[in-house]
């Protein structure tokens, strides 16, 4: 039932007023009260360690910037973007004839040569004409952009005049400071302020001088304008009057579309953007790094992966799934307007302890949120008592059984098994509120009060030392706003009514005596 587990149906309100499914939320326990955070309101931080996902070669940020984030030994197929594997084959090459050796040596030496192959689309480097390499570490080198030289020339020329412009601007900022005194020369030693370093501005001024001395100061003659200086530094761009015409083959020969690259294949290699498939070159894999997230309110970490590259665990894993009970839709009825329709929701507790929940009807109140979700149906809960949901107990197999407390709810709780319960609710789509009758979805908002016992946030050291003593628990009640989108009002095109599943009926029969 993929539509029921579809996480886009049930959303929770984050502290930044955005609606996200529960699996996309984090919680910050240091913020008082306990707040939920989502990807958009949390601070992301890229780890300093970068690694290649294939060969796990790790580099620090500076090294990675030098290689342009590209791993030199791992490649992606330019055809389908999957990993390329290295295959070896043996080739007999004639042994090198030494200069002194006159007689023709015809003994053959078998040598291993390597080529790359993609397992998915069977593309190989041989198809493109790249010769097989004899040693893998030297392998398939990154091709240099042919325009590099010209671009570096231009950039260097611009840097010179930018430095000059900056110097002129800085001078304009401090007109009072005599220009003469910036140059620490012997003749003005007695008079210059900087030389005596009375006010401690010697070091910064020298630093500034050193930064611009090498480039901008070469020609400060105000007679030579910036334009002229620039022109002297670089040869101007050449112009052409006409372009090469298309070869005649375009008009006479039919082209095979498979020999022309698609737009995605071209964009994968921005330096070259090959237009023909016989010009494709293996793409280097990029270095990636792990992300850690921080709460924007209190700057404490919310998610912190382990520093070991291979490990997929987290040092700190404060996901909302482990705190807040998850609500899912079990049944969807055939909707009748302005009449209460029965809907069954399931509540699962993944917290490490028991949770006491109670539902809250919000009536006509609209909850402000950034997704402009407006409820157009009323949801009613027959019972407003607190219901307890046990924590997950993996030690024994539990049967689906209702507790004695559940029987008092008169059918509100219709299923209970281990850490999951199912509740019956009544949803009334209100016809007045339907804006667009054709595409209307049944939407409702309600509140969920959760009462949990959280351990007093003590530091790990204290916990270790006083392992024997009891931890103090604080009971905290958090109210979550839950937004449910049941789906279209009119069920057509393959969308069906979801009837009550058998396990719920079986559970009702299994009442505890």
């Amino acid at each position, binding site marked *: 039932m993929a539509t029921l587990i579809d996480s886009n149906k049930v959303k929770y309100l984050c502290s930044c007023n955005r609606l996200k499914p529960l699996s996309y939320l984090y919680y910050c326990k240091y913020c008082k009260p306990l707040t939920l955070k989502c990807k958009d309101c949390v601070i992301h931080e890229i780890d300093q360690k970068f690694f290649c996902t294939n060969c796990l070669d790790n580099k620090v940020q500076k090294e990675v910037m030098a290689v342009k984030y590209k791993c030199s030994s791992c490649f992606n197929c330019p055809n389908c973007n999957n990993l390329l594997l290295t295959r070896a084959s043996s080739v007999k090459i004639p042994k090198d004839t030494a200069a002194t050796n006159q007689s023709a040596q015809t003994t053959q030496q078998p040598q291993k040569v390597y080529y790359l192959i993609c397992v998915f689309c069977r593309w190989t480097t041989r198809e493109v004409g790249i010769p097989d390499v004899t040693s893998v570490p030297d392998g398939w080198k990154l091709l240099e952009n042919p325009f590099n030289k010209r671009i570096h020339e231009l950039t260097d020329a611009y*840097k010179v005049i930018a430095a000059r412009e900056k110097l002129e601007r800085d001078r304009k900022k401090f007109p009072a400071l005599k220009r003469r005194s910036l140059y620490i020369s012997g003749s003005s030693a007695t008079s210059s302020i900087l030389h005596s370093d009375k006010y401690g501005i010697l070091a910064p001024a020298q630093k500034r001088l050193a930064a611009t001395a090498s480039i901008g100061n070469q020609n400060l003659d105000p007679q030579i304008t910036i334009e002229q200086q620039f022109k002297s530094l670089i040869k101007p761009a050449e112009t052409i009057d006409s372009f090469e015409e298309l070869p005649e083959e375009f008009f006479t020969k039919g082209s095979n579309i498979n020999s022309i690259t698609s737009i995605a294949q071209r964009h994968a290699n921005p330096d070259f953007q090959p237009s023909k498939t016989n010009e494709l070159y293996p793409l280097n894999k990029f270095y990636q790094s792990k992300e850690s997230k921080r709460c924007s309110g209190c700057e404490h970490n919310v998610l912190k992966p382990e520093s070991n590259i291979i490990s997929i665990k987290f040092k700190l894993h404060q996901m909302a799934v482990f705190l807040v009970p998850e609500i899912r839709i079990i049944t969807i009825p055939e909707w009748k307007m302005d009449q209460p329709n029965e809907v069954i929701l399931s509540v699962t507790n993944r917290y490490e302890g028991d949770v006491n929940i109670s539902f809250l009807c919000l009536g006509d109140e609209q909850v402000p949120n950034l997704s402009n979700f407006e409820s157009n149906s009323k949801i009613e809960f027959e019972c407003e008592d607190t219901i307890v949901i046990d924590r997950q107990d993996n030690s024994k197999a539990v049967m689906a059984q209702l507790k004695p407390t559940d029987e008092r709810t008169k059918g509100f709780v219709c299923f209970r098994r281990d850490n999951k319960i199912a509740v019956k609710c009544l949803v009334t789509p209100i016809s007045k509120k339907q804006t667009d009758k054709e595409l209307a979805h049944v939407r409702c908002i309600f509140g969920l009060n959760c009462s949990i016992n959280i351990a007093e946030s003590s530091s790990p050291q204290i916990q270790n030392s006083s392992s024997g003593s009891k931890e103090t628990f604080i009971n905290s009640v958090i109210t979550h706003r839950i937004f449910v989108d049941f789906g279209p009002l009119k069920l057509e095109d393959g969308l069906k009514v979801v009837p009550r599943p058998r396990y719920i009926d079986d559970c009702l029969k299994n009442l505890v005596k």
Partner: protein
Amino acid sequence: MNFFEPFADKPAIIIDIGQAYTKCGFAGESAPHAIIPTQVTLNSQRFYLHNYKLLPHGIETLKEMFIEFLYNVYYKILNANSRERKVVIVESIMTSSDFRKTLADVLFNDFHAVSVLLIPTHLACTYTLGISRALVVDMGYNDCQIMPISDGYSLTNLCSFAKLGAKHLHDYLKILIEKYALVTVDGNRVLFSSLSNQPTLTEKILEDIKLRCCFVTSFERAQKIYKQMEIKQTDSFTDLEFQFAPECDYTIESMIVHIPGYVREMACEIFFKNEIDSDQCLQNLIIDTICKTPIDLKKEFASNVVLAGGGCMLDGFKPRLAKEINALIETKSNVFPCQKLSYHKTPSHENYTAWLGGAIFGSLDILDNYSIQNTQHKESESLPDWFSIQIRNNLVQT
């Protein structure tokens, strides 16, 4: 900021948000790190960022789209912490104010960028060549923008733009395919239009067909074709005796569509010949723009034409444009000062020329003086428009 530059070793991030594709990368590089479509996935649906006006609650959705899009660019593609980096955004002068304001708000408030600089696309193109005066022709997705640049200023009173972008080419191609293409069904070739369940020609499929099958035909051939059409007084290509290029087979949804030669050759003709308004074609626009410029700059603009944008990368586009312009100049020789135009060859592929200009500028020390710093933005809360007086004092002069 002058002495203690903690971010001095971290190159700035350069992003060129185009209508169809976004080019992103680092300052100082020769090519963008990645070229990605300017689309975002919200609620399991894919949207173009620039189509925010079609969605309900346009501006708020645009903000959410920006956050999602820029998160993707920063953390998935570029692997850079947004708090430590300066940003250079290359944008067209014609961008709507809502769009740039929301972009600046998102960059400063949600991503805490150190500083943001907005560079006009056409000006950025001139940085890749080191010239101070040029006529930049940017062929994009939505439209074609022709802007004269002089000494660091974009002469917006002389610019012109036409609805001749890739989008219009795709629409025309769709019409042609639906009218003329053939499909093989049970061994018979039938017209595409006669099929009961026609496969939908989405934007992506049309772009692929345009890339692989279509090209811009040569000037001589086009002249012959139009002559024949005039003689025979017909609008359809099928009646002509001209030897068109051979047809091409394209697979859509396991159906083989035969795209006839005349569709392949004539699809791109919308750029060069307009049935309704004969002045609305590229060569006329370029010549008219040069004619509108002041008399002392005319010759300079005519000898410094820069072709940028993805549209210029179509096969056969550039030689055709050059010849069409030459033919037009011959008819207007009494008004026009020179015999022919001279074109520049940028050290980049045309689709990222503007990005490269931004990258060159982003690697200079002078970046701080032109950017809007984070603190500045907090005080003023408004982004100066390209047509306001404040900006005029800030542009770089080569």
